[in-house]
């Protein structure tokens, strides 16, 4: 589903964030990506989302070589990927409902369909009762679950998460991870960047470890 073929990323200022990374993530897999901060976890995710382009090598997502996607094709590419951010990236001037609805509005769904899907997504993350709330009134864990609902509402085949439990206590973190596992079980390919080794090693999924931009470990 996601293939990295000898991918390197060097930033303009000369820092090499990824060096010769090759990895294959198959469909329906849940994979953790770990490493100390600055090891290249975020860069790897950003390459998948086309926020960055690799300096060398190829990234193939869902059968499509990302090098072939021009700048105009980036929005359509991103609509096929759900992303969960560490800082949630919610819009604080609108309700939970409208935050979750955003990807569907962008994709041009009619309002009835939007309502149906938003409520289904909020139901899955256990926040159906809070659809009218403003994100600012929610706890950190709830905000993250809104972020997850937004990431899955358009039913993407790939779900990326960048430190989704970074600001949460262990109990909440475990809950969030269970949510990701649930989505994985219905066929979504999930890639989670996390430095919480204690948590992710308990979960028995493949773990990719990056160190200084190199893939040093790839174990199940």
């Amino acid at each position: 589903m996601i293939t990295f073929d000898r991918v390197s990323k060097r930033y303009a200022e000369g820092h090499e964030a990824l060096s010769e990374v090759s990895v294959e993530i198959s469909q329906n897999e849940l994979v953790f990506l770990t490493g100390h901060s600055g090891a290249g976890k975020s860069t790897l995710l950003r390459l998948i989302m086309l926020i960055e382009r690799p300096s060398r090598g190829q990234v193939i997502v869902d059968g499509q070589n990302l090098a072939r996607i021009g700048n105009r094709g980036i929005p359509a590419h991103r609509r096929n990927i759900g992303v969960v951010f560490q800082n949630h990236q919610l819009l604080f001037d609108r309700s939970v409902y409208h935050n979750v609805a955003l990807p569907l509005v962008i994709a041009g769904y009619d309002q009835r369909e939007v309502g149906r899907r938003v409520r289904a997504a909020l139901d899955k993350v256990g926040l159906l009762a809070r659809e009218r709330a403003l994100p600012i009134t929610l706890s950190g864990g709830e905000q993250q679950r809104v972020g997850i609902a937004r990431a899955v509402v358009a039913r993407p085949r790939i779900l990326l998460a960048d430190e989704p439990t970074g600001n949460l206590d262990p109990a909440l973190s475990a809950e969030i991870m269970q949510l990701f596992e649930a989505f994985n079980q219905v066929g979504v390919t999930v890639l989670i960047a996390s430095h919480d080794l204690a948590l992710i090693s308990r979960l028995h999924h493949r773990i990719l470890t990056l160190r200084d931009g190199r893939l040093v470990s790839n174990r199940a």
Partner: protein
Amino acid sequence: MSALDHKSRREGASTSRARLRHRFNGWLTHHRLSAAESLARVLDNPVSSLLTWLVIGIALALPAALDVALDNARKLSDKWDSPAQLSLFLAATASADEARELHRELQERPDIAAVVFVSREEALQEFSLLSGFADVLDSLDNNPLPDLLLVTPAPEAGPVAALHRELSADPRVAEAVLDMAWLERLNTLMELSRRMVLALGGVLVAGVVLILGNTIRLAIESRREEIVVVKLVGGSNGFVRRPFLYTGLWYGVGGGFFAALLVAAALWFLGEPVARLAELYQSSFELGGLGIMGSLNLVVLGGLLGLAGAWLAVSRHLGRIAPR
């Protein structure tokens, strides 16, 4: 088989035509949403929006008002502009027969539309009636007035000046008077004014576009976070652009509306003294305004300028806002 797979398969089976209609409806819905949401945002800040509208309104009202003033001036001068007339004062030595002969000659010329013969007797009568000097004139022992031919050149004929020269040379004509110079000066002055209004209008229109561009730039800056998020979850440039274009449209339309209002207010303010002045000159002149179509045009022009300004800002600043 999961529910998700089942769903996606069903979607895959739907015809591409239905999908196209669905996309079009979605696009239309977003236009409607963007328009309504931008209008709500504009109305949410009534004071700053009102100031923007007034700035644009004043900038548009100035050239519009000058244009209306010019239109009125043209309407006035058109009354004088109608084919210039030549007054032929016949020589005192010319007999009545000669005068009638000249009259007939001129009537037959193709470059002359009409000739009116005013005999010296008629002229005297008219003069004594109008001037109130009847007693004085009666006491004169001979009529001091010459015969007069009023010549109206045909509109399609060449320059009146040539005719003027030719008729002046006729020995039966003492003097041919063609008072065209002031009319030409007036017309030149009008043309000059028209161009000045045009230039001023152009400058002010450019100003309006820049003002709106700047307003939209600030709106973009204040919603930077939102733009980043929308781009992260797959919003296209068109999607991001739309609300800002509508914001520009609303500012422009509001500005055009205020401009029309200002022009109407100015005309109302001037209407009474102008009517009185016209009355004093025994003229039926009435001050013309923008009219409904003119006002509508001003609003549409405002809207177009708003769109142009927003487009300027959006094309310069939106591209630079990208997820980091």
